[in-house]
């Protein structure tokens, strides 16, 4: 109930604001005229304008009351003036609301000022002022919209939204005003204003063409920022609303291009040709305006749904297109390549048909056939099965504590069939048809985390469903563990020295505490320091730890932190290390269990060192079964290599993808 009132208020407010902008702008664009019918139209627009200001202010009040009830978390707050005042004075949305309401009141004042058409400067100033105030009030919406919550790039997102609102306001809002003028001039009594109406329609048409371009470009930019993926477009409410909006927008464009063609017919003989054409055009423009009203309903609904990039998409189809299929099956690459080239040839033919006079239809048909044929060749290798959760983002980040939990769960529920290290060689595997696959290399790369989530939840015969037995977090723990297994498998390609400019393996995040310090995460070093993670076993590792301690001040100047993790997970690790040598780097006293569970997948050696670059990628693994001593200059050279790297790879995603 309240939700519906909120939506209705937003729609009314948006519609009133848009029509104010469009009406005032068209009035100004058409210019002053002393014809009685034109004067009649002007007074109609002004009267409507006063009503629209009232509607805009009243609906804004309802909208802010509804917003208050949402923010306060109770429906009753919508009727408490004190709560509403709090929202108005203490939130950014409230500031914008007050500014806009002020502008609308000022606009109302200008609506009652009389403008003499004999004085063109005065008339232009008064009517232009209406358009200006209306546009500023409408564009200010952007400062408290979804665009204002984008980060980074807030300014660009708001700018795009301002352009979108202002351009759409003029175009969409101008339609009913134009329809009214054409209708008035199309009556028998309106003959005096027909040249004026033709002039207005021409000017509007010219400006609207440019504005439709601006609306399209800024709208695409907005959609890119707020939705950003096919999954978001098809799989979230926000995205689907956008699809509806796009369909209605396309219908409007079709009508608009049709209407543009009618305009030349207007200037025929005023009495016989002009009038029927004018009445027809008036009806079509009114139809366009009605469609616009529907688009505004969708827009109002979009402003109250969270943007797609914040939502978990639910994939509606049974298939998806995945380019990753080609990395797994290189022999299909040529087929896709040939298919895509055929598509390009078809598209060229389609474009050429637009330029041709003769043979247009056969070339068009031929081009379409070639495009379809190309798609038939190119697409099949790219098609993958998909599930509702395919694009779901994990709710648990890829970090050691989750991986350790996943490992325990795996041992309990999965190892019987899938084998202790997920190679598909568990004791029960032989009895199953089909046999469990090797989950390490192939699978994790080919399927999204959401695919695996679906299989664990719903089963995949002969595998049973675990949705009832394991809660959501537990299922994500398992997936994080599988990802770590695959990463560990791939990490065999890493040597003890850094390969320059080759970051590709994300180091799982972990959290640790050193004595009484607060706990820290590997993430905290991102963008600041290189980390050398040392898993050590006493006494064999001791000489190496002393070597590192001696080099520690030098490593510090090269922006390296050493984090030592005892493999016996002893709480008194500091005491046991501190006898004799001066070791000042962090020695983990709490959190080592999870770190060991995770990083031992990468190297089970008694002493292992992992060099992790500033972006959080694992770059080198040094493992020593016995004496771990190693020339410290080798480490310094590796660090130097990392410090000299020019390419900054993107920070790795926090989640499996």
């Amino acid at each position, binding site marked *: 109930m309240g939700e519906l009132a909120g939506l209705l208020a937003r729609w009314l407010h948006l519609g009133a604001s848009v029509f104010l902008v469009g009406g005032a702008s068209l009035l100004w664009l058409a210019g002053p005229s002393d014809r009685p019918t034109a004067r009649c139209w002007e007074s109609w627009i002004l009267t409507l304008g006063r009503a629209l200001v009232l509607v805009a202010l009243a609906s804004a009040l309802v909208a802010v009351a509804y917003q208050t009830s949402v923010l306060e978390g109770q429906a009753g707050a919508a009727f408490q003036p004190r709560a509403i005042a709090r929202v108005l004075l203490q939130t950014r949305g409230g500031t914008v609301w007050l500014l806009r309401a002020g502008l609308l009141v000022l606009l109302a004042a200008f609506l009652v000022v009389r403008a003499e058409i004999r004085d063109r400067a*005065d008339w232009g100033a008064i009517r*232009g*002022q209406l358009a200006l105030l209306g546009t500023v009030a409408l564009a200010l919406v952007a400062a408290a919209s979804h665009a204002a919550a984008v980060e980074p790039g807030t300014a660009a997102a708001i700018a795009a939204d301002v352009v979108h609102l202002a351009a759409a306001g003029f175009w969409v809002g101008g339609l009913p005003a134009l329809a009214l003028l054409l209708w008035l001039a199309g009556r028998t009594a309106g003959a005096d204003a027909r040249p004026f109406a033709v002039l207005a329609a021409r000017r509007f048409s010219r400006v609207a063409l440019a504005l439709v371009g601006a609306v399209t470009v800024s709208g695409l930019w907005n959609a890119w920022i707020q939705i950003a993926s096919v999954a978001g477009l098809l799989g979230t409410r926000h995205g689907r609303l956008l699809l509806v909006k796009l369909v209605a927008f396309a219908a409007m464009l079709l009508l608009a291009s049709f209407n543009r063609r009618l305009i030349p017919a207007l200037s025929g003989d005023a009495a016989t040709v002009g009038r029927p054409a004018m009445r027809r055009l008036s009806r079509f423009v009114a139809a366009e305006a009605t469609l616009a009203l529907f688009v505004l309903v969708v827009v109002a609904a979009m402003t109250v749904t969270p943007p797609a990039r914040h939502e978990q998409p639910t994939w509606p189809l049974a298939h998806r297109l995945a380019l990753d299929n080609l990395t797994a099956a290189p022999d299909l690459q040529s087929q896709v390549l040939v298919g895509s080239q055929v598509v390009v040839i078809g598209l060229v033919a389609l474009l050429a048909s637009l330029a041709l006079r003769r043979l247009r239809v056969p070339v068009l048909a031929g081009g379409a056939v070639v495009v379809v044929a190309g798609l038939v060749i190119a697409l099949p290798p790219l098609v993958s099965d998909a599930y509702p959760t395919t694009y779901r983002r994990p709710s648990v980040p890829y970090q050691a504590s989750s991986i350790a939990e996943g490992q325990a769960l795996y041992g309990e529920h999965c190892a019987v069939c899938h084998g202790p290290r997920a190679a598909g060689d568990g004791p029960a595997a032989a009895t199953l048809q089909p046999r469990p696959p090797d989950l390490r290399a192939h699978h994790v790369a080919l399927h999204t985390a959401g695919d695996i989530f679906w299989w664990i939840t719903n089963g995949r015969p002969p595998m049973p469903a675990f949705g009832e037995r394991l809660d959501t977090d537990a299922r994500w723990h398992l997936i994080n563990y599988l990802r770590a297994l695959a990463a560990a498998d791939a990490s065999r390609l890493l040597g003890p020295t850094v390969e320059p400019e080759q970051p590709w393996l994300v180091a799982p995040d972990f959290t640790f505490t050193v*004595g009484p310090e*607060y706990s820290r995460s590997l993430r905290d070093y991102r963008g600041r320091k290189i980390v050398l993670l040392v898993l050590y076993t006493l006494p064999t590792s001791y000489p190496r730890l002393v070597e590192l301690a001696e080099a520690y001040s030098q490593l510090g100047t090269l922006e390296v932190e050493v984090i030592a993790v005892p493999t016996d997970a002893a709480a008194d690790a500091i005491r046991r290390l501190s006898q004799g040598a001066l070791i*000042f780097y962090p020695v983990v006293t709490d959190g080592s269990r999870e770190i060991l569970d995770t990083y031992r997948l990468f190297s089970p050696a008694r002493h292992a060192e992992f060099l992790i670059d500033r972006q959080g990628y694992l770059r080198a693994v040094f493992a020593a079964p016995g004496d771990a001593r190693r020339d410290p200059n080798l480490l310094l050279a590796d660090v130097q290599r990392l410090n000299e790297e020019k390419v900054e790879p993107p920070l790795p995603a926090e989640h499996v993808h």
Partner: protein
Amino acid sequence: MRLWKAVLLVDLALALGVGAGYLWWGQQARRLAADLQTARALATTAGGEREYHGTGVVRAGLGDIGILVITHGEIAGYMPPMTMGFRTTSPKILDSVKPGDAVRFTLRGTPPNLAITAIDKTAP
């Protein structure tokens, strides 16, 4: 006065008003930030000699220069957790603890010129 001049004046006033409001807001924010900074500085330097308490783990004692290296937790009102060396006021303090000991200690002096005046072991 001509009407269009009046409109222009209204717009100018509007623009000036909004601009002035924005500038005033910016200045207010800057002044608040400056006030906060001076208040913080006063809180740490004023009043001459001060005393702080902390807990930590001894990493090393550097007897020849009278410094104790401690990995400590947050020292309320003075310093976030870190590993660093502190001066000690007497060799007895240095000798009373060994590396690996969990300790509670007292710092006294005029910041940033502080030294450990007392230290106790909290666990064997």
